């Protein structure tokens, strides 16, 4: 849905989405990196299992909830990517105590 502007010269950062290596850029939020990737990054809701993607990108809608380095229900739009970050797309209610 989104492409990177050719004049964007920020250094690359490698993250992993459900184990797959994804190229992000320094300064990307997790959600921006996910939306810029070609992966299917739709989460499914805890209520009905409906598929969602980030809606507001500013920390208010909670549709960007994602598991980051093992911690679930993080707002991906507020967290910057770091090298080697492990992202898991949440499906349904998040398991606790794993």
């Amino acid at each position: 849905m989104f492409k990177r502007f050719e004049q964007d010269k920020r250094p690359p950062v490698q993250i992993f989405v459900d184990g797959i290596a994804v190229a992000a850029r320094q300064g990307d939020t997790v959600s921006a990196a996910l939306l810029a990737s070609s992966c299917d990054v739709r989460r499914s809701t805890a209520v009905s299992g409906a598929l969602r993607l980030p809606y507001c990108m500013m920390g208010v809608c909670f549709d960007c909830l994602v598991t980051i380095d093992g911690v679930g229900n993080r707002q991906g739009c507020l967290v910057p990517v770091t090298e080697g970050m492990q992202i898991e797309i949440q499906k349904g209610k998040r398991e606790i105590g794993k």
Partner: protein
Amino acid sequence: MTKNVDAIVVGGGIHGCSTALHLCLAGLKPVLIEKDYAGRHASGVNAGGVRQLARHIPEIPLSIRSMGIWEKISDLVDDDCSFENYGQVLVAENEEELAVCRARVAELNTLGFTHEELIDATELRRLVPAVAETCPGGVVSRRDGAANPAQTTTAFRRKAEQLGAIVREGVAASNIRQSEGLWHVDVGAESFAAPVLVNAAGAWAGTIAATLGEPVPVETVAPMLMITSRVPHFIDPVVILRGRKLSFKQFKNGTVLIGGGHLATPYQDRNETVLDWKSLATSARTVFELFPVMRDATIVRAWAGIEAKMKDDIPVFGPSSRHKGLYHQFGFSLHGFQLGPGAGAVMAELIVNGGTQTRIGDLGIDRFYSPTL
């Protein structure tokens, strides 16, 4: 213009709504007066525990009476109130606490109460698999459970209205007075008169009682609760602790409610509370010492409802010691929700029949006054 009714119920909590409903069932026409809306305070925002477990002995008969109503709650209010009865479990965290549990159950058995049952570590683990392995046992009350408090209070209010109760919300009862055998109460521009007045005004009831010449040792408190986001199902019964303040319940939708009686600061006049996060942190620590799997659960909301707590922690329930036609039903001291359905039924019996089969003698307001000759 004064409207004549059979009874005036002040307070739209679970107790006032239940009493109004049961008065209607007995063929009376009550008016229910609530300054905010039904279930605005403690009745709508409590932990929803439907618990006979660990109660003070004087209120056990009322609690048992109430339990019978809870088990057929849909028949009464046409709403399931999200009532579930997977039992309530009191967890002993060590052998000393288990010994206290053992003595308690033995005492109840002597008095003829059998709802509390001592359990060992194996049974505890069967009922509550996620509990910390160090806990040696506890007590279970198997018919207990939980309901949705706002849904319940609203359902009682709705049913009472359907059966003919007049409901006035958003305006406080004022100018409460007795003249020529009738109680008069103003509600905004309206005025009601009735031979019976029920004081079920929760945190505001102590003031009403005092104004009518029956001051009691009561304080306003605001027990705090917090709730998590939805997590996969892992526990059925409600869990409470013997030694520390904690109540713990997972709802069908996956959210987990954490309570136990740590208090916020109430600002009663503003209908507001200020939460004490350091105390809630204590609850959080207790939770994951007991349930290590809860560590990563997220807290989405915390709140506190305003209610009345008596000095002796048991409610004021029954006829006034001074005035004919006045009845008190307040001061449930953080454990009144389960009692609501039964208390309304018993109150209606007291009003209509002048007595009840349910033993409530130790709950009267006269316990605060030394006997006079």
